């Protein structure tokens, strides 16, 4: 009998353990249960079996309890609060509650943490968008992975690697190499722009390209109107961009309509296609395409046919390989191809393939990796992608450092919570996860805020960069994942140390109010502040150095005077008038007292002059030296107009009849040609042969990245793309007004175009300019985040020392001494950061500067300026709180608890 009582007691305990049941319920059910046992025993079961049967008959206590709970709870759905839900770990509600409380009680610190992280993550988002765009170039072509550009490197002489090659090469390649499925050539239409006319409309079109009819087979440019297979076959066919078609024809369908190029021989074109809106992320942007057959028709003559120009580096040629073909396989066949194809250029002794190498350059590599001679446009650089990525990581780390500092510094405020949780059985792991979870949650909140911030900032970024960045979240899972990855990463980085540190508190000690030994912790905190400021100082000094170098490039004596020169492109009706009588136009303009000189010449300094081979009298063609040459030559007035000084000899003179075939060369060319007493020596370039009459100083006609190269300038007085006008200082606007009226009178149908030589020259430093402004923005962001952290940390530390400050004041400390006391420790840290970052920034920036042939020295003043400014900024940050505590009445401080 005793054993059955024991069993019943046990059964009752399961009832008692269940919070659903009240005392009376248990009594009632026990009574029922006993009756059941009794009944079974009467039926002849023994005690044990009767008990077992009763347990079975009564059913699962847990289930009964749950139903009773449902009857009694005011909640209509759900599980009893003590039962674990299937997917939410227990206590999670409590964690949220604690987190919510912490946030609302510490709005100040939470705001600091969140804003730091938000700015950090937003910066990362923007940089990712930028990088994503950079690496996306030319990938929109469906066959992008099979398209390669053919480039040619001369292995002799200047070893120039050309992005463009001779017109017949493409067809030759297709015929010779079966793995090549298709080829296409692109040749930019000369001149900066052309005027198209349709009825009374005039349209200034830029970026036109001659291309083969295979264009649409190779590249993926869908047509809005027209048939891609036939659009570019007939001579005189033109395919327009959507914008261009819209501007010229409005809503009319332009297919089959004729437009004419009014500025260039009045050529008529028939519109055969209109392109859909084109992506901007291509290395080869264009606005309209003209059939290559037009080019052949326009240029071929009895003496010249493009297909005979084997060595003319004129056209950009692309091959489409068969599917599955390894480019290396095709490249291996290229030396043989060169030997056969260029056979007629060979002298019999040297094989053409030993003089030149042909490469296949993957289409998608061009934008980031290609910097060859005669690129269609200046490409970007993979190094920028790396620099940006590193900066993004740094900015994020600065934000995470804030989080770590503020959380560990303020850990003592949560000691009681930690103590109690531990006492109630929370393990270290559980606590660590709680704290880590909190930081991840905060970083996710920051992520949402950062997203909003980025969307808000995006239009401005687009304006600065001239790109069209968009957030296409839904269509790009990789983007979503990488963004979420950043949020999680920053949450984990910021949370991992604080969670390990805080979860390690001993419950007994913290409940007694003993602060855990935190010397490690303080060390880490100091280290992080040093880290943050080291990066900030690095960025400030870097910005200063970049800025200084760019300023140097702009103001450095270039060997010519780029200020006060107006460039006027010669085209259209004006071109005809100029070529009719160039001298009279010059004289006419020079009558204006504010115009000092007028020159009609080919290129201006800053444009890349082409490379040609010249030879001295007595040398054979083998001994030719390749030098840069002023393409279309210069006229009598170029040297004075550009303000170039001659070190020897004289300028071209109309008085000297032999000057019509003469040269002016620079000092570098004298050296390269190995001349002594150069004036009077005869120089040959094709059929142009004549004496050297003058030696110019080495003026910087290219960017200061490179040393001045050898340059020769022939005289071509009646030919040129530009009219250069030198004005008296300060009279530019008057002169412009005069030029516009005068040229307008001469060529009424022309659009007046001009630019300033100084602006054109500054274009050379555009990528440096962009880098400089990017550096500048990031320095600001980094300093801002670091200061947010410093502000929080100093506030907290001053808070902790309120009493100490009160006592000191009572004992007679002055406001100043309090300020010094509070700021001292931070200033020390910033000094350490400064000392650490200086050598690193010096080394890295020196490396950057070494890419310039002409560089501004890194001055001590930059470091001093950076040091002082960061000191002032941080003093202002700390000072606000320090001052508050220093001038507060000691009574208040001592009363505070």
């Amino acid at each position, binding site marked *: 009998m005793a054993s059955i009582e024991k069993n019943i007691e046990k059964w009752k305990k399961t009832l008692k353990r269940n919070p659903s049941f009240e005392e009376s*319920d248990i009594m009632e059910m026990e*009574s*029922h249960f006993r009756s059941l046992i009794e009944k079974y025993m009467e039926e002849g079961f023994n005690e044990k079996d009767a008990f077992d049967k009763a347990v079975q008959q009564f059913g699962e*206590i847990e289930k*009964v309890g749950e*139903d009773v709970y449902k*009857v009694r709870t005011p909640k209509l759905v759900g599980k009893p609060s003590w039962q674990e839900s299937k997917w939410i770990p227990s206590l999670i509600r409590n964690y949220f509650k604690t987190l919510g409380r912490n946030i609302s009680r510490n709005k100040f610190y939470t705001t600091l943490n969140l804003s730091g992280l938000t700015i950090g993550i937003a910066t990362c988002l923007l940089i990712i968008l930028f990088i994503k765009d950079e690496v996306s170039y030319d990938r929109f072509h469906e066959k992008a992975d099979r398209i390669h550009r053919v480039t040619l490197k001369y292995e002799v002489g200047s070893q120039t690697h050309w992005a463009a090659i001779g017109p017949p090469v493409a067809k030759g390649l297709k015929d010779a190499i079966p793995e090549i499925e298709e080829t296409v050539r692109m040749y930019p239409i000369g001149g900066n722009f052309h005027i198209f006319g349709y009825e009374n409309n005039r349209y200034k079109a830029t970026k036109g390209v001659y291309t083969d009819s295979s264009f649409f087979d190779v590249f993926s440019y869908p047509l809005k109107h027209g048939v891609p297979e036939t659009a570019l076959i007939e001579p005189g066919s033109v395919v327009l961009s959507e914008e261009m078609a819209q501007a010229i024809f409005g809503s009319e369908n332009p297919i089959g309509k004729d437009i004419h190029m009014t500025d260039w021989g009045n050529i008529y074109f028939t519109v055969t296609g209109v392109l859909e809106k084109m992506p901007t992320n291509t290395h080869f942007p264009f606005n309209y395409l003209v059939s290559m057959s037009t080019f052949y028709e326009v240029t071929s003559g009895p003496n010249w046919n493009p297909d005979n120009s084997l060595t003319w580096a004129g056209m950009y040629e692309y091959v489409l390989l068969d599917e599955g073909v390894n480019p290396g396989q095709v490249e291996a066949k290229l030396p043989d191809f060169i030997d056969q194809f260029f056979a007629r250029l060979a002298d019999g002794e040297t094989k053409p393939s030993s003089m030149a190498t042909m490469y296949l350059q993957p289409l998608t590599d061009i934008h980031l990796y290609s910097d060859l001679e005669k690129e269609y446009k200046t490409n970007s650089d993979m190094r920028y992608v790396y620099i940006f990525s590193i900066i993004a990581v740094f900015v994020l780390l600065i934000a995470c450092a804030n989080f770590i500092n503020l959380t560990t510094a303020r850990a003592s405020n949560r000691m009681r919570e930690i103590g109690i949780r531990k006492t109630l059985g929370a393990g270290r792991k559980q606590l660590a996860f709680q704290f880590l979870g909190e930081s991840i949650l905060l970083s996710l909140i920051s992520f949402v805020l950062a997203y909003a911030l980025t969307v808000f900032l995006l239009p401005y970024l687009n304006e600065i960069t001239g790109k069209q960045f968009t957030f296409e979240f839904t269509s790009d899972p990789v983007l979503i994942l990488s963004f979420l990855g950043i949020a999680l990463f920053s949450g984990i980085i910021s949370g991992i140390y604080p969670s390990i540190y805080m979860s390690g508190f001993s419950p007994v000690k913290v409940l007694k109010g003993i602060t855990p030994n935190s010397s490690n912790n303080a060390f880490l905190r100091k280290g992080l502040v040093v880290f943050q400021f080291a990066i900030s100082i690095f960025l400030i000094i870097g910005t200063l150095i970049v800025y200084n170098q760019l300023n140097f490039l702009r103001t450095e004596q270039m060997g010519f005077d780029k200020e006060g020169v107006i460039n006027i492109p010669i085209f259209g009706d004006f071109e005809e008038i100029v070529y009719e009588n160039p001298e009279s136009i010059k004289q006419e303009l020079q009558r204006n007292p504010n115009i000092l000189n007028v020159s009609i010449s080919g290129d201006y300094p800053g444009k890349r002059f082409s490379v040609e081979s010249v030879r001295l009298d007595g040398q054979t063609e083998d001994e030719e030296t390749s030098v840069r040459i002023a393409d279309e030559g210069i006229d009598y007035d170029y040297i004075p107009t550009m303000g170039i000084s001659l070190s020897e000899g004289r300028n071209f003179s109309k008085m000297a009849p032999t000057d019509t075939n003469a040269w002016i060369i620079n000092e570098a060319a004298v050296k390269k040609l190995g001349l002594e007493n150069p004036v009077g020596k005869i120089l040959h370039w094709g059929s142009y042969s004549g004496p050297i009459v003058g030696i110019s100083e080495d003026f910087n006609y290219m960017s200061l990245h490179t040393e001045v190269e050898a340059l020769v300038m022939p005289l071509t007085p009646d030919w040129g793309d530009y009219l250069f006008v030198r004005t008296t200082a300060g009279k530019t606007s008057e002169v412009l007004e005069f030029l516009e009226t005068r040229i307008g009178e001469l060529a009424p149908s022309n659009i007046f175009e001009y630019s300033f030589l100084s602006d054109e020259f500054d274009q050379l430093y555009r990528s440096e300019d962009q880098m400089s402004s990017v550096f500048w923005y990031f320095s600001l962001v980094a300093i801002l985040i670091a200061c947010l952290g410093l502000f929080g940390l100093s506030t907290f530390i001053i808070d902790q020392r309120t009493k100490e400050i009160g006592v000191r004041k009572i004992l007679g400390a002055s406001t100043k001494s309090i300020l010094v006391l509070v700021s001292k420790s931070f200033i020390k840290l910033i000094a350490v950061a400064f000392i650490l970052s200086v050598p690193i920034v010096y080394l890295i920036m020196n490396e950057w500067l070494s890419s310039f042939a002409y560089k501004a020295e890194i001055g001590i003043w930059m470091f001093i300026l950076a040091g002082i400014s960061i000191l002032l900024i941080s003093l202002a940050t700390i000072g606000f709180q320090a001052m508050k505590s220093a001038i507060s009445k000691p009574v208040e401080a001592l009363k505070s608890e």
Partner: protein
Amino acid sequence: MISKSLVAASSKPLILTILSWGENYGYEIIQKVGELSGGVLDWSDGMLYPVLYKLEKDGLVQSRWEIEEGSRPRKYYSITKKGKEELAQEKAQWINVNEVLQTVWNMKPTVS
């Protein structure tokens, strides 16, 4: 076996009916259910109590304790006025459902 949901639905009218015959306590109620249904309605005994508590909470039954020396304490339930009204309604509903089903099942399907 009768389905779980049907057992749950029928528990209310069944218990109210048994109580309408007179005051009773948990064990006896469940015994009656067993006898009357001939074992068709197979309840685990414990499940009776949530139902009873619910009826009591809704005011359909009331209870009192009877504790006497020497015998087991028992909690007696009796039907209230509201309970009777509820039972009448339930009854009507069940009969309705029953009739509908009967009619439907007695019909010969006609193909038109």
